[in-house]
């Protein structure tokens, strides 16, 4: 069992860290306060090859393996302070680009995947609805065949990237009587008649990643824009969920790494009762626990990414990774604030933003409760 990274992965990590520090960290505190998405940052990442990293070369990607993707996303999370941007990019990669790459026709890949790899187009994944979140397939958006087209009706909520998206991957039911097996996916272009994007939704964290509702009213979509076969929506979703649950929080592990460094530096420098606070076991132990959580999260991430690359990842492993990493990111952020004391609570220190950003990790891509349900089911409970 060889746990070492390859030389390429190590040099890519250093390059990405340099890139992120140089190009992605402008005005993050102010942009977070203003809920401002950075299109400039998005395009810079695409130019750096991030959005295309794991996708085939013929569509503008670089065909990297998924462990390399995990290493790169972690490096970005470590060096880039704008986690809203990283979340938005990761969400597009795992939930829009991935199903396009796996289930799209040649035309769809050329039309949508390629410009997403190059950063020219932005994609949004539209599954959740006001009445169906965890019970994702309880959705009520419908798609009715009409000649060469489908007519979509319904509404979607919590849609990351919607305010800036050019393409919406929409899940709708084409056969109500077939339950979750009657769900089909469609690629809906911005500007389609009957497609309306709501006002941006304000959030606790990840404020630089734009989110809104999406409304479909008699929205006509060419049949050629169906992604996968009729009734294949659940399969498509399950495949993208494996990527999502494994990889979406890789940047959060980078944040944990940065928090540990900041805490160690602060605990060595900050003196109380005449000595550095790191000399108090209560403080040191808290940082030790952060380090153990970071290492175990990283191992789970790399292992799951490796299994996914081999086509051997089970739902349980994906769920364990998502559950453990998201909970660890949240706890690590709380610990980092505690180590920094009152200073950690201030906006300037930026640890509080990490905490706000981390809360969403327990909700998106399936809540922690849903991950536990999946694990319990896999254990035969």
């Amino acid at each position, binding site marked *: 069992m060889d746990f070492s990274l390859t030389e390429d992965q190590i040099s890519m990590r250093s390059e990405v860290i340099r890139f992120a520090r140089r190009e992605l960290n402008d005005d993050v505190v102010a942009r977070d306060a203003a809920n401002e998405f950075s299109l400039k940052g998005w395009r810079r990442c695409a130019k750096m090859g991030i959005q295309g990293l794991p996708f085939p070369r013929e569509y503008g990607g670089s065909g990297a393996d998924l462990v390399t993707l995990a290493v790169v996303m972690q490096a970005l999370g470590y060096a880039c302070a704008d986690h809203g941007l990283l979340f938005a990019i990761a969400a597009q990669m795992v939930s829009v680009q991935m199903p396009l790459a796996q289930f799209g026709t040649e035309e769809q890949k050329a039309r949508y995947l390629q410009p997403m790899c190059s950063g020219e187009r932005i994609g949004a994944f539209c599954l959740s609805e006001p009445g169906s979140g965890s019970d994702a397939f309880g959705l009520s958006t419908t798609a009715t065949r009409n000649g060469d087209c489908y007519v979509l009706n319904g509404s979607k909520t919590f849609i990351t990237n919607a305010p800036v998206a050019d393409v919406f991957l929409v899940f709708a039911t084409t056969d109500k*009587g077939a*339950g979750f*097996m009657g769900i089909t996916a469609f690629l809906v272009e911005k500007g389609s008649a009957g497609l309306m994007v709501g006002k941006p939704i304000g959030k606790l964290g990840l404020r630089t990643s734009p989110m809104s509702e999406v409304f479909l009213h008699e929205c006509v979509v060419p049949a050629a824009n169906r992604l996968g076969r009729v*009734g294949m929506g659940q399969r498509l979703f399950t495949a993208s969920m494996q990527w999502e649950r494994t990889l979406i929080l890789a940047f959060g592990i980078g944040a944990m790494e940065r928090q540990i460094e900041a805490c160690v530096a602060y605990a060595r420098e900050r003196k109380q009762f005449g000595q550095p606070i790191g000399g108090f076991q209560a403080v040191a132990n808290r940082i030790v626990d952060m380090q153990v959580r970071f290492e175990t999260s990283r191992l789970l991430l790399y292992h799951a990414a490796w299994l996914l690359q081999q086509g051997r990842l089970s739902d349980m492993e994906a769920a364990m990774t998502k559950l453990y990493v998201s909970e660890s990111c949240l706890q690590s952020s709380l610990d980092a604030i505690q180590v920094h004391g009152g200073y950690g609570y201030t906006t300037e220190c930026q640890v509080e933003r990490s905490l706000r950003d981390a809360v969403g990790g327990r909700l998106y891509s399936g809540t922690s409760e849903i991950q536990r349900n999946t694990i319990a089911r896999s254990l035969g409970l």
Partner: protein
Amino acid sequence: MDAVVEDITGIIHELARVRRIATVQPRDNLLAQGIVDSLAIVKLMLFLEDRFPIRISDEDIVPENFRDIESLCRFVQSKMR
């Protein structure tokens, strides 16, 4: 009753209880009632693969095979042939 029909009826009734549905007729739509939903399908597939000498592929997961107890029994019997 045929063993396949008996076993399948048994597991479907078990899944129906989760949805607080007391009885299921052979032609009741399991998908529309949510008795076989995206969570139940995993349990159902594990059960079928464990109980019968069959392997269920992604391609098999279509409404025609899972819509009701009758179609499910037909599907399992055809797989065993």
